[in-house]
């Protein structure tokens, strides 16, 4: 059980990183980005393709993949900022659902629908606790999740850019009237989350089921985790991701519960929604 739980921690770290990205996107650019994991998937696949077909060194290929992930996300951000600047979160998010479809299909065409021959960036155990092995990947993803969350917190809280981003998310029109350029800043947020998501997926993809659909659908547990923080709080998003990973890992140990495992993120989401929406609220806008 403990071994399973710890094994789940690597996945949990990945959920946490993606949840942080989703939270940032929702807070700063008012969108639930269903294509968040899919952009990372395409970026990490490109890295594999580069290694296999051009013989580029591992690190350079990974870097290329990460840049592609960031670029894809920035491009999507540009579309949303240009044509959907004044629309509600629902419509903006619906666009990302269409992009999710597009990216999965594109990767079927470009890379096939089978798992990719990833060569692990990290492999092997990092250390042992009481006879249970903790892998390097686990340490890396959990570390990355905490690091990204802390860095975002510092960026938003302490820097001039962060303050501007917060101003923009709170009152976009007022911020623009004060000379804060909404579009470049928003696109930067898209690019940044694309970069981080691709990085995280590149680290974890070699050690888990990495066909396009599985990777793209990582957005489901990630949004479950982000929902714990109400798509606002980074610390709860990280916590939610880690807990979800650990519980999944533990449940996976039991054969009777294997089906339950698939439904864990959904149950998590439903429970959180029921709790957070228990009071009737009237949306001023609608």
């Amino acid at each position, binding site marked *: 059980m403990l071994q399973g739980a710890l094994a789940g921690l690597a996945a949990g770290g990945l959920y946490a990183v993606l949840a942080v990205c989703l939270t940032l996107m929702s807070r700063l650019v008012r969108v639930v980005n269903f294509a968040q994991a899919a952009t990372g998937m395409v970026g990490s696949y490109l890295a594999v393709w580069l290694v296999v077909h051009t013989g580029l060194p591992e690190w350079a290929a990974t870097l290329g993949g990460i840049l592609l992930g960031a670029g894809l996300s920035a491009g999507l951000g540009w579309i949303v900022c240009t044509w959907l600047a004044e629309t509600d979160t629902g419509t903006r998010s619906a666009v990302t659902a269409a992009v999710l479809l597009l990216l999965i299909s594109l990767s079927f065409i470009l890379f096939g629908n089978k798992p990719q021959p990833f060569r692990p960036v990290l492999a092997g155990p990092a250390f042992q606790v009481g006879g249970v092995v903790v892998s390097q990947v686990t340490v890396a993803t959990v570390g990355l999740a905490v690091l990204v969350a802390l860095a975002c917190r510092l960026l938003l809280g302490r820097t*001039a850019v962060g*303050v*501007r981003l*917060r*101003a923009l998310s*709170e*009152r976009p*029109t*007022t*911020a*623009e*009237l*004060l*000379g*804060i*350029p*909404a579009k470049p800043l928003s696109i930067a947020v898209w690019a940044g989350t694309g970069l981080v998501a691709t990085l995280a997926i590149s680290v974890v993809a070699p050690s888990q089921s990495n066909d396009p659909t599985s990777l793209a659908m990582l957005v489901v547990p990630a949004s479950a985790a982000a929902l714990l923080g109400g798509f606002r709080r980074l610390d709860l998003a990280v916590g939610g991701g880690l807990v979800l990973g650990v519980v999944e890992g533990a449940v996976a140990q039991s054969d009777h519960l294997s089906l339950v495992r698939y439904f864990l993120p959904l149950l998590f989401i439903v429970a959180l929604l029921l709790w957070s929406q228990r009071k009737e609220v009237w949306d001023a806008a609608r």
Partner: protein
Amino acid sequence: MNTLRVNGVTVARGAGPVIRDVSLELVPGRITALVGPNGAGKTSLLEAISGVLPIASGSVHIGPHDLTRQSRVGRFRRGLAHIEQGRAVFGGLTVLENLRLTARTGEQVDQVLALFPELAKRADSPAALLSGGEQQMVVLARAFAANPAFLLIDEMSLGLAPVVFTRLLPVVSRFAAEGAAILLVEQFTHLALGIAQDAVVVSSGRVTHQGPAPDLLASPATLHTAYLGESR
């Protein structure tokens, strides 16, 4: 010296025009009071000047520069600032963070804080926790810190006790005296006309009267017609 000129501006919102063929000019050092009943289109006019609403026809110029097709940010960079209705503070940001959005230097922050000593004490608290009057001070200070040549102020008094509002008016006057051109929309008509040099009366989206503010103050008949309807 540059002026801001609004030439025959028409603004459409929803079905029809809410502003029709409005022209006015803002001159540095002078306050223009824009008065008229609720729903006359004052807010829409301000929003059209600053770029919140698109202009259907007509133009807005600062000196030789045509702002009509410029973005909100572009207009801000030309020296235009717009204080929106309803105390638009960033509630999640502290007072200081609000001010630093527009102030370039620490000195500028100190300068505007000197105008509102009340704020200095609350510099590090989130703006959402301030009283209505203090929030309006943050909004004013934030606009002043950008040192705009042209300032549009929409219903500064909304939801504020009159006492608080009278505390703010002299600061606006002084800012104009230092060289800014101000367009002031205000429901406390007489107070606004009291500090203004020029007056523009709008009713149902059109300018119905334009002239020196003291004259309008002296002849209430014009105002009564605009506010209380023709049958008066």
